[in-house]
């Protein structure tokens, strides 16, 4: 069954989300297995929101799932390079 494009986030169309995608992947909030190979490795919007929420929760922010200013700011804070979520 074809998958509706609108169900997936196209990171190319949202400014700054490439970096956020990289950040969430680098620190263990998004794993390659969550990407859908049949739709250009895009990520389900719910998966993306859940990953943001997990990061916010871990960091002590309000877990809204929104990529708000506070969340973006924390993502730019210098930090340790080890993953937060160790599998």
């Amino acid at each position, binding site marked *: 069954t074809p998958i509706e494009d609108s169900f997936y986030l196209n990171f190319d169309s949202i400014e700054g989300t490439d970096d956020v995608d990289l950040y969430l992947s680098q620190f263990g909030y998004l794993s390659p297995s969550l990407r859908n190979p049949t739709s250009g490795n895009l990520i389900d919007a719910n998966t993306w929101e859940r990953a943001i929420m997990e990061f916010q929760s871990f*960091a002590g922010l309000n877990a809204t799932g929104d990529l708000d200013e506070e969340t973006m700011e924390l993502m730019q804070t210098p930090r*340790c390079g080890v993953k937060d979520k*160790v599998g």
Partner: protein
Amino acid sequence: FGSDTRSKRYALQGSRWKVKALTYRISKYPKRLNRKEVDDEIAKAFNVWSEYTDLTFTAKKQNPVHIDIRFEESEHGDGDPFDGPGGTLAHAYFPVYGGDAHFDDAEYWTIKSTRGTNLFQVAAHEFGHSLGLSHSDVRSALMAPFYRGYDSNFRLDSDDIQGIQALYGRKTS
């Protein structure tokens, strides 16, 4: 995770050293700091953990050692390149992966200064990983992943103490 019922706590990666007398070597020093000062800060950073456990850390000039420490820039051979000033400051490997600690030498490492990035605090955090601690979601913990600036009155958080003692037990003397 720790076994208490709080929602926020330390996390254990799952491996630890079998011995408590550990050795380390700084095999590559930073460009901008005096070697003796670096030796002292690294020793202080290890002492953070030996204060609450029976772990001991002895500096050596030759291999073999348990924990190898290097200041490197960009790609440095482990497939996890550093990203220049800001961003990621350092990384370290859990005991099962060797325990080595790497620091990004593109950072402006400083000692007892509010400027730059405090070497002692970052080193103490990284050595927590070298000993088997993962990141904590307790904001005040040393093992929280974010650099919080120089703290002239640095003390380990009770969360860090509980974490390290879960791995190596309490100090007996």
